[in-house]
């Protein structure tokens, strides 16, 4: 394990905290109850972060995609798809493991002392997030439109709990107008948030595993990402410690670029022979490394 790998794996929690603060750097807006309106919002942040969060420094990629395809002018977003492909190739699901504020939120909840439940038997549920990406993010905003040809952002409106955590709660605390306007839709979304919060205490990152369309997109990009894992076959003793430690239910020795691997590095820390490492760049697979 080299120094960089050691640093990333050991200080992941701090990196997640820093990424969350940087993603929502306009902190005074929380007190003012207003949104940042600068040019940073032309660009997307890498993780799931609501652009209606008072501190948000950029746009949410999933919200932005729906805003574009749900507008009367466009039926597909080359801009957002391009950004997502770029981020996917450069970082893949490293974004989920290190840079996503909602992923970090769930991990903090999982630290609450309680019985922890395995999601191994619930693996089929992971396919749900791909259906959500296709149906709620891509298709419904284009196909279900009003008389002006505009579609709703179905994922943001009916499923995303991040809008409640980062938008509705902080804004309604300081803005009586917003507080008064919250109705049935807010109650529905609050119900989803409470469900995710409770599940996160018992399961590791349930929203990321089963529901997140952004995670689904990055999962599709994990195989072609420049950020990858490496397992040295000469050092690996097939003890299974890495697979037992992995809370995303991945056996890294069988598939170093598994779509569910969020590059959290728990396997790196669990490996008794230091056979697992992070790798970055256009990498040739060496003879002694486990291939994809």
């Amino acid at each position: 394990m080299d120094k960089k790998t050691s640093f990333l794996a050991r200080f992941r929690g701090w990196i997640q905290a820093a990424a969350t603060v940087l993603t929502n750097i306009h902190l005074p807006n929380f007190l003012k109850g207003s949104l940042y309106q600068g040019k940073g919002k032309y660009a997307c942040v890498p993780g799931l972060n609501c652009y209606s969060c008072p501190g948000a420094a950029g746009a949410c990629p999933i919200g932005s995609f729906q805003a574009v395809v749900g507008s009367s002018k466009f039926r597909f977003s080359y801009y957002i798809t391009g950004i997502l492909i770029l981020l996917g190739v450069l970082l893949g699901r490293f974004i989920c493991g290190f840079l996503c504020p909602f992923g970090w939120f769930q991990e903090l909840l999982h630290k609450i002392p309680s019985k922890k439940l395995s999601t191994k038997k619930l693996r089929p549920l992971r396919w749900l997030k791909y259906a959500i990406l296709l149906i709620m993010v891509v298709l419904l905003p284009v196909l279900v439109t009003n008389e002006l040809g505009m579609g709703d952002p179905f994922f943001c409106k009916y499923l995303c709990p991040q809008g409640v955590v980062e938008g509705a709660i902080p804004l309604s605390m300081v803005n009586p107008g917003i507080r008064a306007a919250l109705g049935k839709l807010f109650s529905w979304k609050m119900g989803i948030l409470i469900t995710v919060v409770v599940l996160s205490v018992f399961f590791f990152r349930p929203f990321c595993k089963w529901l997140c369309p952004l995670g689904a997109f990055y999962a599709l990009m994990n195989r072609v990402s420049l950020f990858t894992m490496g397992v040295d076959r000469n050092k690996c003793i097939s003890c299974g410690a890495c697979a037992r430690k992995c809370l995303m239910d991945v056996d890294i020795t069988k598939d170093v670029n598994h779509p569910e691997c969020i590059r959290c590095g728990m396997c790196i820390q669990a490996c008794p022979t230091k056979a697992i490492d992070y790798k970055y760049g256009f990498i040739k697979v060496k003879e002694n490394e486990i291939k994809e």
Partner: protein
Amino acid sequence: MQKKTAIQLALLGLSVAMIGFGVWRGEADTVFAKAIRLCMECVGIG
């Protein structure tokens, strides 16, 4: 060049081209206009 490297380079090129095309046809303005205003659907108003 390995097949995977070729795919990675092609995707990087494609992504830059898509971003450029999206900006050219005005998608970035749509994103900006949505992102600077309160998203009613996101916070649960409506």
